[in-house]
């Protein structure tokens, strides 16, 4: 394995691992806050139990997210010193602001988790709100950096060197709005659907369990609207990519030749050697319609770009299909949920819908991984689009295969442990003695000493 490929793999694994926890860190605090707000209003002990269980899960996931995020901040230099030396002064500003947002998140999460009986209930809820807001804001700052890598702005390029930089302009990359919107919605949709799916599965076993019913309702309150809005944000994204990163769009659609009335390709396996696609279904003029909102529009194919500037087309195309497919499924199920609620039917008494929700549980997270694959692999061979090649940014250190092996092993083990912890600590239905505790008057009026 070449060192460049090892470095890219290590970065990919680190990002793929971290993004799961980062997304939960954005989505879960909102669920906790909704449950706690309900508890303050209704004093229903089930809401308090939900807020506490969810905060337990968040504590585990946030800790792993915090340390794996630290790995990434170092890896920017450990693996890509050339990139950081060039881009640091331009994109450091959002990173610094992200540092403060992350600080706020960590501080108020500590207060939230361990402050149940130390601060007044209102202050406690407010701490939860701070966690939810700063989590979302820190996500937005990080995505702003990625938007700059995709559509860089705020500098002049003179003989390959970046000069006359403007870090404020760099924040306003043309990709900034669509990427931050798409990612923030994705975080809420993925978390909401994952939690809803888990409780839907448990409701199939115990349909009358009020605990799971309440959990499902709150999770869908967050997940369903986000999943429904995501296709609109996806449309904005696709048009933006068509305009500013045409090579990526061509790879996403496996469009080898520039065409008017370009068709939309469903499925299919692109062959980069013969420049053809096997087994795909074409929808006439579909791509032109989606990318330019005009059925006759000309869409640039990969033939417009030198062969060495192509990303790996099959990876990008398949990842894109996966993201769109799963996102569409989630949006349809969200519509179904809203339709059911609008007719005043109980979701919990609708086994088919519960099954659909259970199937969708991992969809949001898979779609996020696929989406980041599209963004990152689709930008190759560039690390900063049109400015710096990934191969020119990699560290001169040899033997990167070993660090790759080490971090892969670490993350696989951590992943297994986290899944086991979440299952045994949070997801399992409350046992008889738990129910007793939840409904005992003492627990209802005075929260237990700690959320642990």
């Amino acid at each position, binding site marked *: 394995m070449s060192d460049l490929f090892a470095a890219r793999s290590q970065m990919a694994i680190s990002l793929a691992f971290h993004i799961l926890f980062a997304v939960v860190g954005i989505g879960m605090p909102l669920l906790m806050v909704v449950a706690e707000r309900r508890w303050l209003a209704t004093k229903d002990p089930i809401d308090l139990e939900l807020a506490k269980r969810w905060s*337990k899960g968040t*504590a*585990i996931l*946030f*800790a*792993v997210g*915090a*340390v794996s*995020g*630290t*790995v990434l901040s*170092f890896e920017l*230099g*450990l693996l890509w*010193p*050339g990139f*950081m*030396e*060039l881009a*640091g*002064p*331009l994109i*450091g*500003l959002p*990173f*610094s*602001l*992200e*540092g*403060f947002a*992350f*600080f*706020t998140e*960590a*501080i108020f*999460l*500590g*207060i939230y*988790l*361990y*402050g149940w009986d*130390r*601060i007044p209930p209102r202050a406690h809820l407010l701490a939860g709100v*701070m966690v939810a807001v700063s989590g979302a804001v820190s996500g937005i700052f990080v995505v702003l950096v990625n938007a700059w890598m995709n559509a860089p702005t705020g500098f002049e390029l003179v003989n390959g060197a970046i000069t006359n930089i403007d*870090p*404020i302009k760099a924040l306003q990359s043309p990709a900034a709005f669509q990427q931050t919107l798409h990612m923030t919605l994705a975080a809420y949709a993925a978390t909401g659907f994952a939690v809803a799916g888990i409780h839907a599965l448990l409701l199939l076993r115990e349909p009358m369990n009020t605990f799971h019913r309440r959990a499902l309702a709150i999770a869908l309150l967050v997940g369903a609207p986000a999943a429904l809005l995501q296709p609109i944000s996806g449309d904005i994204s696709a048009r933006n990519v068509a305009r500013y990163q045409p090579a990526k769009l061509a790879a996403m659609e496996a469009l080898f030749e520039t065409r008017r009335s370009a068709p939309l390709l469903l499925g299919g396996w692109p062959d980069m050697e013969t420049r053809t696609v096997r087994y795909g279904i074409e929808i006439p003029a579909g791509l032109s319609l989606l990318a330019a909102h005009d059925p006759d529009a000309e869409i640039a194919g990969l033939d417009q770009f030198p062969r060495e500037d192509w990303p790996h087309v099959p990876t990008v195309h398949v990842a894109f299909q996966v993201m769109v497919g799963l996102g569409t499924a989630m949006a349809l199920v969200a519509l179904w949920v809203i339709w059911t609620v609008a007719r005043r039917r109980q979701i919990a008494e609708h086994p088919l819908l519960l099954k659909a929700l259970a199937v969708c549980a991992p969809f949001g997270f898979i779609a996020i991984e696929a989406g980041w694959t599209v963004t990152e692999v689709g930008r190759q061979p560039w690390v900063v689009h049109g400015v710096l090649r990934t191969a020119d940014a990699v*560290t*001169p*250190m*040899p*033997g990167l295969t070993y*660090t790759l092996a*080490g*971090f892969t092993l*670490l993350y696989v083990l*951590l992943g297994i*442990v986290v899944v086991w*912890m979440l299952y045994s*600590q949070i997801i399992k239905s409350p046992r008889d003695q738990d129910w007793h505790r939840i409904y005992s008057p003492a627990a209802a009026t005075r929260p237990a000493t700690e959320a*642990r």
Partner: protein
Amino acid sequence: MPPLGLADLVAGAVVLGLTAYVLLAGADFGGGVWDLFASGPRREHQRSLIAHAIAPVWEANHVWLILVIVLLFTCFPPAFSRLTIALHVPLSLVLLGIVLRGSAFIFRSYAPEYSTEQRSWGRVFAIASLVTPVLLGVALGAIAAGQVNRPSGRGFVEDYLAPWASPFTASVGAFTLALFAFLAAVYLTVESRESDLQEDFRKRALAAGGAVFVTAFLTLLLAWRESPLVWHGLTASARAIPVHLVTGTAAILAFWGLWSRRYRVARVAPAAQVVGIVWGWALAQYPYILPPTLTLQDAAAPHITLKLVSIGLGVGAVVLLPSLWYLFRVFKR
């Protein structure tokens, strides 16, 4: 000496961040060390005191390191790139330690009480807490010794192992570990409500204080033999000498406080000692960020970046400082 500029200001913020990291996160690592060395009849009490002291704050304390890294790559990009190339191996190991320490701590908190699972995670947490500070110290030692340079292309050993593998950096590693353990033991004397437990940590603090003294002396001795750059900075830099005096005074006060069981004094004095050590080192190598060749001025990012980051730091502080104050008021009165 030229007047202080924006680069110096931002460099000051980096050192400030590092100071906070050592004072706060350093003590969290030290707590893990005392978890590993928990002994005697109150062994489990010691462990639970440590866990309670660390739990609400360790993640916030950890963020200081991220702030330091971000400021480095934003404001001094060539320095960051040299550091991450030459110190790739120890920094990767530090990361491994950080990940294992943090995750094992949280896994232990949520594992079933008194299970083998819980004990095993406790072990991982404690061992990672012991190893990580040593590696961190080794990396800092390599910077101070002027070993962080562009790779020469002479081979893996010369470029990627030799810069940080020396008796001097090893002794800085040991010194860092002793310092973190010292801080933790001193803070824990204030945290404990029972006098027996307080006494346990007082003894540990005195022992760790002795270790700080021995490793500091060893580091100085090795600097004199191996690293003239550090030796000169520590002994002959006019800027650093007053700071060293403060450090020495604080060290004596810390011992006196511990000896006479004045724990509030004993908490402030070691903190002052740490501030003195970090700033003494920083001032000794000023104006170099990576001695002996790269100065702050040469490594600094364009003026506009430094200006915006300074503004960002100001705005961030307005959010951060009251939040931190609230966190510590709730948990660390």
